[in-house]
């Protein structure tokens, strides 16, 4: 009964998942920049226009030819294998779409077009199991938003003030609902206009292959400024309609992060690092955790691990390595002889 805190071993690889996540985010973002360039190259190839290109376009052509020649003999056809953005993509014949695109299109069109809805099936199934993982692991906007968070840290070091206000996290469900309602009324997929991953994919294509940024880039820069000046990661936390949809889908997710209470020393670094302003220290992950593993990576006592459980984990009280728990234990044990000094 009066055993001292015995740290439990947690699987050592979970700590390094955050690096894998950054690799994934970087790859997705780089792909979104590469695909429009590949398309530009394909159009040059299809037009047999090398001699008509300007010198810098010829240089671009040569670079792309060098990059793709190991993988393809017929760039104009073969490079069609991977096309699209995270909003809707075509990977080796497999069509994948964002669940928000499916929901928004159903709202705007007021009909069910099964072939399109099926393209959102695989992402929905993954979300049901893994929760809001898209936001942490794939979303190209997350890549920029997390860099933006780091920029805010540097700005604070320089003595500038950055915003860290808190709002109600349920605002984004309202944004999702109102956005879908407006989609129904207007008959156009309006949620796509305020959904950063869709914006980034589109704008990257517009900027590289179509010769100019669209209006969405203005909105995106606005969200970056909002995150810097008003609330850290504020758009994802409070506004994003896609995040709201993923949160709802991931309400009863299977894969969760759990605090190992025996290892925790209440240092609260997990709360400080959490991009979504959750409360891992008090086991309050809820439906909005995106399994980004930042808290696992930052935990100095390896007190965070993965678990498979369908329901929320109830609060487990103070960590066994912390002062609070020891004081509590000392209070409980006042009438009993102390066996050991913790």
């Amino acid at each position: 009964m009066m055993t001292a805190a015995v740290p439990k071993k947690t699987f050592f690889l979970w700590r390094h998942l955050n690096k894998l996540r950054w690799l994934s985010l970087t790859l997705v973002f780089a792909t979104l920049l590469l695909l429009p360039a590949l398309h530009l190259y394909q159009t040059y190839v299809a037009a047999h226009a090398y001699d008509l290109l300007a010198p810098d376009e010829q240089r671009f052509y040569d670079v792309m030819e060098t990059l793709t020649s190991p993988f393809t003999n017929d760039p104009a056809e073969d490079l069609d294998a991977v096309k699209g953005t995270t909003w809707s993509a075509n990977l080796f014949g497999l069509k994948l779409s964002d669940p928000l695109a499916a929901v928004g299109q159903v709202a705007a069109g007021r009909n069910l077009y099964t072939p399109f809805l099926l393209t959102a099936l695989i992402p929905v199934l993954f979300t049901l199991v893994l929760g809001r993982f898209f936001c942490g692991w794939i979303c190209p906007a997350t890549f920029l938003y997390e860099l933006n968070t780091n920029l805010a840290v540097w700005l604070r070091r320089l003595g500038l003030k950055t915003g860290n206000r808190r709002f109600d996290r349920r605002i984004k469900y309202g944004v999702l609902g109102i956005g879908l309602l407006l989609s129904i009324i207007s008959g156009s997929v309006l949620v796509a206009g305020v959904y950063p991953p869709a914006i980034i994919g589109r704008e990257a294509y517009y900027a590289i292959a179509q010769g100019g940024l669209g209006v969405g880039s203005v909105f995106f820069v606005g969200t970056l400024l909002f995150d810097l000046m008003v609330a850290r990661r504020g758009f994802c936390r409070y506004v994003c309609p896609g995040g709201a949809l993923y949160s709802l889908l991931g309400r009863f997710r299977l894969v969760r992060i759990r605090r190992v209470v025996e290892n925790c020393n209440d240092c609260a670094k997990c709360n400080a690092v959490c991009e979504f302003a959750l409360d891992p220290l008090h086991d309050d992950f809820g439906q909005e955790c995106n399994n980004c593993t930042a808290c696992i990576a930052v935990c100095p006592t390896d007190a965070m691990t993965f678990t498979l459980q369908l329901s929320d984990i109830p609060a487990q009280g103070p960590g066994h390595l912390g002062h609070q728990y020891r004081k509590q234990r000392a209070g409980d044990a006042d009438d009993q002889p102390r066996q050991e000094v913790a």
Partner: protein
Amino acid sequence: MQRRRFLTRLAATAAATAAAALPYGLNRLLAPPVQAAPRTHLRPPGALADDQAFIDACIGCGLCGEVCPPRCIRFHERDGAGWLNTPYINPEEKACILCNKCMQVCPTEALTEIPREDIDMGIAQIDRTACYPWVDHGICGACVSVCPLGEKAINFALWNQYRPVVQTGCVGCGQCVEVCPHPSLPIAIVERSEGTITPHRI
């Protein structure tokens, strides 16, 4: 006296203005409704016929543009609230080659794959008061030679081997518009309903 003169002038000015505006007003009242002729904003091939249905269905993913080999599919990047991020083709800049890739890649029903003959982006219309052979300013035939659909879409008039004549098989891809050498582009893609096939046999 001052006031009377002022009132007289006022009445005269009002009468003159009304008289001058009457023909314009009558003209506006009697004129047929002006239909937007989006000659430079064609929807890609296989698009839903009703443009509002197309906007409903399109999710703005940009895949059609990303697979287009001639990069003719452009997007409403900055204009049009409902049109925003929807695709269009401007045949005056770059015309569709009817390769079907956009129809195959579209995840929604906005673009559905249909046989080449059933595509309806519009129909070519030739302005016979400007086209070089039609006004006897030389020989051309660029539109006829470039047409991917051949003589069922456009061929030469029977009595003059250089004057192009659009046929009902035209699907409106716009290759002829892109290639037309005349600076004022006497050939344009119009909606099939306003095509001039029947009245002028064009």
